[in-house]
């Protein structure tokens, strides 16, 4: 390809430096890709009547065989292996992304028809039509949206202080002490508790105070916080460990006590990362169903009191509509879409706030 370079090389009296190698054309991957696709279409659906679904697989297989072979002929072994591995890695990424995009797209397609003004502003209370005296089923999920937001907020308010203080202890005070190691192990164990166990724990805990069968929103918050705390501890710990020791020393050298250094230097420097960790934890629990089913229950009307009475939440709403039958499935999908949107909005907000507070390089 690079003819000018090899010309220069032959002009010199010294033996040409062996930097110049035969290379495939720049669009080699594209060329072979198109070829593979054409072959797959021809040899598949067109000639043998195979399913169209086979095309991507056959084309992908052809590409991953043909391109390295061609490369082996022209460029040699190392380049061929490089191309093969590049392709395999790309396939892996695509494979990981496909289900994600699929689920999102499917949720949007299924959920969008359900979403209208009533869906977003009404609850599920059955009303009596004043004209026809027919019972009208409720049309909205506002009570579930509010319930999910309140219960998750409650869980966040419980877990962020506990989680962050634990992380601070582990990073700044515990160092390598036995206590710190025990806590780390416990947090790891906590990461693995099944969510239903957290729900049952909340039930058992509150049964000590109330009567059997009590279900209130706050119990759900407690259950969810059990699931959130380990994530908050872990991410907070990692983020605070990333804060350079230099900054702590700079602060100490100004005569700032340790606790103020942590509060005013370490935590603000790690703030963006800590926030991201908290949001991850929130995203993890906002779709939890089992613990809320046992701890909070389900109702059809709006209840905004976290400390009294059952509440509805989006995941539990989805489950109950799913159970009630095919004609209510649309409501379930609508609620699922709203749940996904909630998570996305929370994540985006966290990202934006994190950017604002991220350490500024000024460059």
């Amino acid at each position, binding site marked *: 390809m690079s003819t000018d370079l090899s010309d220069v090389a032959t002009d010199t009296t010294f033996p040409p430096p062996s930097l110049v190698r035969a290379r495939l054309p720049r669009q080699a991957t594209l060329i072979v890709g198109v070829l593979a696709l054409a072959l797959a279409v021809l040899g598949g659906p067109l000639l043998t009547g195979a399913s169209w679904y086979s095309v991507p697989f056959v084309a992908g297989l052809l590409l991953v065989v043909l391109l390295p072979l061609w490369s082996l002929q022209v460029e040699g072994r190392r380049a061929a292996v490089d191309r093969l591995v590049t392709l395999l890695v790309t396939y892996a990424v695509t494979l990981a992304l496909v289900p994600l995009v699929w689920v999102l797209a499917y949720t949007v397609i299924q959920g969008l028809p359900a979403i209208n003004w009533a869906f977003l502003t009404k609850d599920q209370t059955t009303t009596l039509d004043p004209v026809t005296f027919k019972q009208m089923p409720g049309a909205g999920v506002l009570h579930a949206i509010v319930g999910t937001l309140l219960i998750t907020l409650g869980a966040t308010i419980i877990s962020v202080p506990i989680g962050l203080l634990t992380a601070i202890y582990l990073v700044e005070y515990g160092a390598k002490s036995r206590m710190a190691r025990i806590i780390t192990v416990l947090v790891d164990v906590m990461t693995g508790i099944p969510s239903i166990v957290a729900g049952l724990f909340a039930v058992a805990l509150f049964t000590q105070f109330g009567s059997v069968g009590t279900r209130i929103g706050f119990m759900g918050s407690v259950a969810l916080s059990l699931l959130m705390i380990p994530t908050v501890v872990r991410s907070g710990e990692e983020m605070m460990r990333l804060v350079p020791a230099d*900054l702590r020393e700079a602060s100490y050298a*100004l005569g700032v006590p340790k606790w*103020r250094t942590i509060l005013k*230097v370490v935590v603000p420097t790690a703030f963006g990362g800590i926030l991201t960790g908290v949001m991850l934890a929130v995203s993890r629990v906002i779709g939890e169903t089992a613990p809320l089913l046992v701890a909070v229950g389900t109702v059809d009307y709006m209840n905004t009191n976290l400390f009294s009475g059952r509440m509805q939440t989006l995941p539990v709403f989805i489950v109950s509509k799913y159970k009630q039958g095919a004609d209510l499935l649309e409501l379930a999908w609508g609620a699922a879409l709203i749940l996904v949107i909630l998570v996305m909005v929370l994540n985006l907000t966290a990202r934006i706030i994190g950017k604002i507070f991220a350490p*500024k*390089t*000024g460059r």
Partner: protein
Amino acid sequence: MAKSIDVSDLNIYYGDFLAVEGVNMTVKARSVTAFIGPSGCGKSTFLRSLNRMHEVIPGARVEGKVVVDGQSLYDPSVDPVAVRRQIGMVFQRPNPFPTMSIYDNVLAGKRLNAKKVKKSEADALVEKSLRGANLWSEVKDRLDKPGMGLSGGQQQRLCIARAIAVEPEVLLMDEPCSALDPISTSAIEDLIHELKSDYTIVIVTHNMQQAARVSDDTGFFNLKATGEPGHLVEFNPTKKMFTAPDNDATEAYISGRFG
């Protein structure tokens, strides 16, 4: 303002590892004292023991006495935080706070300690400190920009401004120029000359010419052998040190024959 420091029989440990052994010296007030010596002989360690920054490292401890103006720093009743307010420190690598603007970095000593400062006083303090650090004219139009956006030399002078804004009595500097270009280095050396009239300055340097240029007294640290603790070989006025040192090892080091 400035204070003298008397060190007697100081042993400095990292856990069980004795890093520096048996140091005796007197750092004079309103003067510049330089420490030279090969890498790993404990200059930084010794410097950090002068404002109780050493014990920030887990397991680190000190035996012996450091007396500043008649007060023993390692007395059990002494609060290390109070010590550090009087004895400031500038580090080898510039370390401005990344979340703060230039202005806030200078005020960090006050702000982080939750001292209420009036806006006018704060402005005056920032200007005075930045002027003191020879940085004012370069940054006066962008005080609200992040401190991390400055060049390495400017960042180091910002750190000096931050250190003198808390009005310490003593300023410790650990190789403050080792990451800087010659021009920034000379700016900081000029600054050290000026600061000398108000502060007691102790500076660690790898650069013998720098020690000769800026200091009044010089201490030479060395290792007896690898694995042995570092110790103070010779402590004398800089003039004498660089012309007629008492110790052969000092002469060898200064003339570049080893180390």
